[in-house]
């Protein structure tokens, strides 16, 4: 017998040992679609998630060039607040996304008072004679400080802020390079830091260090891809824009010449109009694609967005020529995506379906829950389908088989789905139509 599990099953049950919970949550930062700040904040939250295992407060320094700079400080301001936070975190079934949302709310509410206090703490990162907390990073060693007030190696300014006698400094290392440091303490419960705590925290530090490292690599890679794509793009855009402009100029010149017969005048004006339409379309598509950053995903009700796309004049104009089907499972859940991008994604899929399908064909939109925790929105058509070599290039910018295509629709969709941690899947056979499936994270409606 073979049993299959997807990666959602790596989310542990609540009764799992606390240590495992902690490591499981922190290691998820590698594949969650959130910003570096959001993901690191989750790591700090996990480290401070309550009595038993875990600390009361966690402070994060990040390496910037040759300096180590205070970034975030997470923890309750009082015993009362501590109780509140620990209660939220021990809600059964709480997942990564909930922790991110909880953190964002908390940071908003407290205007991040703790973090503000450490933002102007800056240390030189490479010096051998640095003071604590920077000393841990310089030596690449974990340092447990007790009786801090009597210890001359502790920076006094730092001590004034943290105001505890006992704390733990964990450098964040990857490839033997220091990327940051975490300082942990038990300011509220005053529990001494034990060997078990140190082991666990050092493991978390390794994971967080490697996460920061891989996030940096990922960013560099994206930048490189962008530069390469820019060259391609400049070429393509020159071509796509110059051609309609030449046509508009040329036919306009003819209009200016005396003695052009009436039927040709009309034809020229029609061509000019069409070419201007085309320019507009190009500019619209470019605008979409070039959006520097997409809006953050949120849980939203997709029903009104889907209706507005289906009721848009462009879709309504196509409808009579096709057999159009829309089947959405009762009780639409809330989907995790930016609502505007979601609408644009659906619109792009429908445009492609209509383009590929001759009039009389069928275009269907379906929405349903999968058992493995995804919500699927699919667009299927009965059009010409996609050849195998083309399938590999579908999501590359500027890949198009249409005379007036831009090849930016599917790359845009890919970007949106990456941003919200979803997926796109394509199935198609030549002549057998195409099926595009979008997988979204979802939550039942509130």
């Amino acid at each position: 017998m073979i049993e299959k599990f997807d990666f959602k099953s790596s989310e542990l049950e609540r009764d799992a040992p606390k240590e495992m919970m902690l490591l499981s949550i922190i290691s998820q930062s590698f594949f969650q679609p959130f910003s570096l700040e959001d993901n690191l904040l989750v790591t700090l939250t996990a480290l401070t998630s309550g009595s038993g295992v875990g600390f009361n407060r966690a402070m994060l320094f990040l390496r910037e060039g040759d300096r180590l700079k205070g970034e975030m400080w997470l923890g309750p301001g009082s015993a009362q607040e501590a109780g509140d936070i620990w209660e939220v975190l021990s809600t059964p079934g709480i997942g990564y996304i909930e922790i991110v949302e909880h953190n964002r709310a908390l940071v908003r509410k407290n205007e991040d008072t703790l973090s503000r206090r450490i933002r102007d703490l800056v240390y030189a990162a490479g010096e051998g004679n640095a003071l604590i907390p920077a000393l841990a990073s310089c030596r690449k060693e974990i340092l447990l400080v007790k009786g801090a007030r009597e210890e001359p190696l502790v920076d006094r300014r730092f001590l004034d802020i943290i105001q505890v006698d006992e704390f733990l400094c964990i450098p964040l290392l990857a490839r033997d390079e220091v990327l940051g440091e975490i300082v942990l303490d038990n300011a509220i419960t005053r529990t001494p830091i034990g060997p078990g705590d140190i082991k666990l925290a050092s493991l978390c530090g390794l994971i967080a260090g490697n996460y920061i490292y891989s996030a940096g690599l990922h960013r560099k890679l994206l930048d490189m891809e962008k530069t390469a794509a820019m060259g391609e793009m400049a070429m393509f855009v020159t071509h796509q824009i110059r051609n309609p402009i030449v046509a508009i100029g040329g036919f306009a010149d003819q209009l200016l010449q005396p003695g052009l017969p009436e039927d040709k005048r009309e034809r020229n004006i029609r061509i000019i109009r069409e070419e201007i339409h085309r320019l507009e379309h190009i500019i619209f598509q470019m605008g979409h694609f070039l959006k520097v950053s997409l809006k953050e995903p949120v849980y939203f009700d997709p029903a009104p967005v889907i209706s507005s796309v289906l009721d848009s004049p462009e879709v309504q104009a196509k409808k009579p020529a096709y057999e159009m089907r829309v089947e959405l499972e009762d009780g639409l859940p809330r989907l995790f995506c930016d609502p505007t991008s979601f609408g644009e994604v659906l619109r792009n899929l429908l445009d492609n379906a209509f383009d590929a399908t001759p009039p009389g064909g069928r275009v269907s939109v379906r929405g349903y829950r999968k058992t493995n925790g995804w919500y699927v929105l699919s667009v299927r058509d009965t059009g010409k389908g996609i050849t195998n070599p083309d399938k590999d290039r579908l999501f590359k910018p500027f890949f198009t088989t249409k005379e007036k295509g831009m090849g930016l629709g599917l790359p845009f969709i890919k970007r949106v789905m990456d941003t919200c941690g979803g997926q796109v899947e394509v199935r198609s056979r030549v002549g057998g139509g195409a099926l595009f499936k979008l997988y979204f994270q979802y939550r039942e409606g509130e």
Partner: protein
Amino acid sequence: MNKRILLVEDEKPLCLLYEEELSKEGYDVTAVTDADAALEALDKDPFDLIVTDIRMPGKDGIELITHIMGRRRDIPIIINTAYQSYKEDFMTWAADAYVVKSSSLDELKAKIRQLLDR
């Protein structure tokens, strides 16, 4: 007899524009929209000059030139394209002129006259 021009241009409005404007100059113009049709036309009829785009679906203009060089070295070729950058591609040196498409056809017309009067 009028001089005969073979025009290869995949964009339909542009194809129409060039065809009309070059006919007005007194040339016999045969317009085709891809490289394969161009090779076919070349086998059938004699031409005095070829005007071709570079980026086209299917065989592109550079492949077309390569094919033509293999058969008929005597027909002058003008590249007429939206791209400035292909000038650096050494195969385009094989062409007799390189014109960047512009909304005024004066440069193209002048190059054609020059090459045909030679």
